[in-house]
């Protein structure tokens, strides 16, 4: 019964990959090697597709691997296996938070968590910026370790400024994403 097996394998991945979609990659490599369901080359393609389509990367990759192993139903089963541990753990944590919401101890802990969370998001943004706005030594002609990639920087600046303008700041973020994708195609970024 491939579907039960798929569910169980992805349940394990969901349970053990802590901290974001990219944390699932080593587990997926191991899964492919153990089961022979897909090769390392297949996985590289799946990562590329998952990174260039909407949706969280971990969810996209589970869907893709599930599809490769068991067709459309496999895709659904794989992704449900991945999210089941999350749902169980988070529902438990929510229950706990509801019960102790007014506790001073919990409130104190959150006073520390909020700036930490903001810092982690900032750091993630910086690493996206490094990939999106700079070229590595292989990509650029100058050979410097990190060369600013001006067309991408221009797009980022335009979007940032537009989001601060009173008239434009209520636009849906997807409009900026779509415009940037069009700019990327037109200017061959």
């Amino acid at each position, binding site marked *: 019964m491939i579907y039960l097996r798929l569910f169980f394998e992805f349940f394990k991945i969901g349970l053990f990959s802590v901290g974001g979609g990219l944390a*699932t990659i080593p587990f997926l490599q191991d899964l492919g090697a153990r089961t022979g369901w897909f090769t390392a080359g297949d996985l590289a393609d799946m990562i590329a597709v998952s990174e260039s389509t909407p949706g*969280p990367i971990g969810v996209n990759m589970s869907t893709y691997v599930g599809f490769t192993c068991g067709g459309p139903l496999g895709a659904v089963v794989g992704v449900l296996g991945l999210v089941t541990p999350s749902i169980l753990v988070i529902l438990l944590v929510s229950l706990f938070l509801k019960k102790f919401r007014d506790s001073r101890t919990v409130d104190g802990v*959150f006073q520390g968590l909020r*700036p930490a969370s903001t810092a982690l*998001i900032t750091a993630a*943004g910086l690493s*996206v910026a490094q990939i999106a706005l700079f070229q590595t030594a292989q990509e650029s002609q100058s050979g410097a370790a990190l060369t600013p990639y001006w067309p991408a920087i221009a797009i*980022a600046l335009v979007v940032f400024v537009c989001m601060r303008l009173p008239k434009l700041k209520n636009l849906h973020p997807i409009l900026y994403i779509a415009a940037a994708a069009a700019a990327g*195609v037109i200017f061959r970024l």
Partner: protein
Amino acid sequence: MREYLQLFWTFAQVGACTFGGGYAMLPILQREVVEKKGWATAEELADYFAIGQCTPGVIAVNTATFVGAKRKGNLGGVVATLGMIFPSVVIITVIAAFLRNFAHIPAVGHAFAGVRAAVVALIASSVLKLGKTTVKDAPSVGVFLAVLLLSVFDKPLEAAFPAVAFLFSPVTYVILAGAAGLLISLARKGGKGK
């Protein structure tokens, strides 16, 4: 029933607009969940991200479950999560079935390079918004800077202290920050008691 549909639909939108990792969902979450629907406050969103970071699973999924559960209990958590994964399942299935070489189409590469640049701006403007409510006094600035420096320099730190390399992870930072927050609040309470 209507509220469950609304949860599903809202998170399906969030899933469809999340490009390039879980953090890219922050701008759209701020807009849909905090500003338009009022389902959670900006501070709660920061809490969910921090907890989602050190609990099992994908951060985006954990955040969706949190918001859904807060709004409509356990079933709400499940419905929001299913909404979040719905666009991925549809899009990936179509690509896997019909567009095997999707990632190798040149236009896809160009479009995605543009999207990533926009995502940088979206995250930057979300962080500025979030920082206004989460980083406002001396202790919170201290925690923010400490975690930011540790996260940015995690590779050199791991190289410098190979024996404890596993400690340089967001899980550790979140736990330490929580402990720091607790100590600071206890110290403040003690100070007021005098």
